[in-house]
């Protein structure tokens, strides 16, 4: 398999700067998610690695070989498209075998390898079916099989799960990850769904307006956002603004919040002046006793009083929207007790010091 390196890539569409000096490394055999809002340049970067778009500056290497002048068909990559792009005039067997037949592989070899990869994606027996006779999940797996059968150096996935319904998508997330691990192929996966990115990838890269905002393992990026954008884009977060005073953040209403520095660049205690910290909704404990802050070992710090605006019930979980001095905070709870606090109830919010991260207000 292969290591993919992107060095100082920039891309302009007329005056629009789609990618601005982006550099990142995709380690061999790893499952890498490129995350970002639409228009962030993530798909453009993927298509450049594939060879459908060409950089105005910078170079892309696969296994140390500069591929910028190589056309798509010579890069030995496998790509799964958002709409799967299965060839309507061919059945499953011909679709999956297409990559081999254009390379002049002989019939027996094609039959053997197509059989093997169809088994890998659990589609054996469907080889005579036409694309329009398959379900969404089946079509998606045929697309993956078709991309893998030629043993490409890199597998590129362009939002492959977005067309699937909720339950099928969860199942396919696991399935795709299993297949990737079995084959051990370097995979780059573009999505705008942060949950998908978190569950499937070994490594995440968040892109915004053509810049690589943050890169790293999912847990690290989630727990240590390096900017307001990263905090807010990956997962949900409550942002508290205040002024920094010797390592703590003092909010508008005087509440003091102890924060830890973000491992990715936040300078906790040193400077004075305005600061922002982020608290994940699931880290907050909610209780209807306004000054009940004894059940957690929190010192009077990290403790706010607010009133419930509404609740969002999602079966296994519950999210409260809390009004706190002109701001709306969100608290996420497992659906344990079953009784729901009505709107208007005064409540108290508290959380452990380690759960507040100082975030540079980039």
């Amino acid at each position, binding site marked *: 398999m292969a290591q993919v390196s992107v060095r100082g890539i920039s891309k302009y569409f007329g005056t629009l700067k789609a990618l601005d000096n982006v550099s990142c490394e995709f380690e061999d055999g790893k499952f890498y998610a490129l995350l970002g809002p639409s228009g962030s340049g993530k798909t453009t970067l993927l298509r450049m690695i594939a060879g459908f778009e*060409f950089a*105005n500056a910078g*170079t892309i290497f696969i296994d*140390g*070989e*500069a591929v910028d*002048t190589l*056309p798509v068909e010579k890069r030995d990559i496998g790509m799964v498209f958002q709409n799967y792009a299965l060839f309507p005039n061919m059945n499953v067997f011909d679709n999956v075998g297409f990559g081999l037949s254009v390379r002049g592989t002989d019939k027996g070899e094609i039959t053997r390898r197509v059989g093997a990869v169809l088994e890998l994606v659990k589609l054996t027996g469907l080889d005579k079916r036409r694309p329009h006779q398959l379900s969404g999940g089946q079509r998606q797996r045929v697309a993956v099989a078709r991309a893998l059968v030629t043993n490409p150096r890199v597998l590129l996935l362009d939002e492959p799960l977005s067309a699937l319904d909720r339950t099928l998508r969860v199942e396919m997330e696991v399935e795709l990850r299993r297949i990737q691990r079995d084959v051990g192929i370097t995979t780059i996966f573009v999505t705008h769904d942060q949950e998908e990115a978190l569950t499937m990838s070994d490594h995440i890269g968040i892109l915004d307006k053509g810049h690589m905002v943050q890169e790293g393992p999912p847990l690290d990026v989630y727990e240590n956002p390096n900017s307001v954008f990263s905090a807010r884009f990956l997962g949900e977060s409550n942002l508290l603004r205040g002024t920094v005073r010797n390592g703590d953040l003092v909010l508008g209403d005087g509440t003091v919040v102890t924060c830890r520095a973000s491992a990715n660049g936040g300078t906790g205690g040193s400077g004075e002046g305005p600061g922002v910290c982020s608290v994940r909704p699931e880290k907050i404990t909610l209780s209807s006793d306004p000054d009940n802050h004894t059940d957690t070992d929190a010192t009077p710090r990290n403790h706010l009083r607010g009133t419930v605006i509404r609740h969002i019930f999602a079966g296994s979980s519950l999210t409260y929207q809390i009004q706190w001095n002109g701001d709306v905070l969100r608290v996420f709870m497992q659906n344990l007790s079953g009784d729901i606090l009505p709107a208007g109830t005064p409540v108290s919010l508290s959380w452990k010091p380690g759960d507040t991260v100082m975030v540079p207000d980039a």
Partner: protein
Amino acid sequence: MAVAHPQATDTAASVTGRSRRTAILALTGPAYLWLALTIFLPLSAMLYYSFLSDVPIGDRTAVLTLENYAAFFEKEFYQTLMWRSFRLGFEVTFYCLVFGFPCAYVLAKTIRGRSREALFLLIILPFWSNALVRIFSWTMVLRGNGVLEHSLNWLIPEFGSLNLMFTYPAIILGLVHSYIPYMILTCYISIEAIDNGVIEAARSLGARRLSVLRRIIIPLAMPGIIAGSILIFVPVVGSFMEPRILGGRQGTFIGTIIEDQFTAVFNWPLGAALSFIMLALVLVVLAIMAPAIKRVT
């Protein structure tokens, strides 16, 4: 893992640019070389002729002149015939639209499956019969004790003579018959692409049948209507066969005048000049219609 430093002589853009250019050249080159040899060069020769006093073949002397173009402006009957040919073009296009569009709509929206396929082909089929034979068949239908008169007399005893032959309507009938399949086909293609959901949505919003037609179907079918109109208007303005055979005394148009310059006399320059004037006027008409078309599509 040693990373090879890129020589970067060939930037990615230029290499693929070259392969793209060769692909474009390979695909369009042969076709347009063919057109150049058979259409553009011969026509530019003809355009050159239109500025000469005589055809430079054999020992004829030819000198550059504008007299051929001037003739159009000096002689009033050329202008009358030019206007008459354009009116013919507009009328035939109008009738083809009025009678052809509903046909296309019915075919596209109310008929399904195999029978639509067969009907679609039945409309193309008349193209295969020879245009001349079709026109002559019309003379057999329209003329004195022709098929039409005969059957009418059979129906209504002393119906008498129809004398529809050798009249302006006879020309219109012949031309509409030859060109209406174009309008039906182009409109069919664009109407067929209209998603039924759009029509249902409009009706669900309370639109009656007429406003659905006017506000939804016609605008969406406009590309087909325009393509059909162009494919009909342009050739009809220059038509000379149908008018001469069906029109009798009424069959004189700019097309027949141009034909005379090639068959009655050896005056190609004047024939070419009149044709290029006609072509220019046709392009002017299309240019005038363009903004109206753009506004609607």
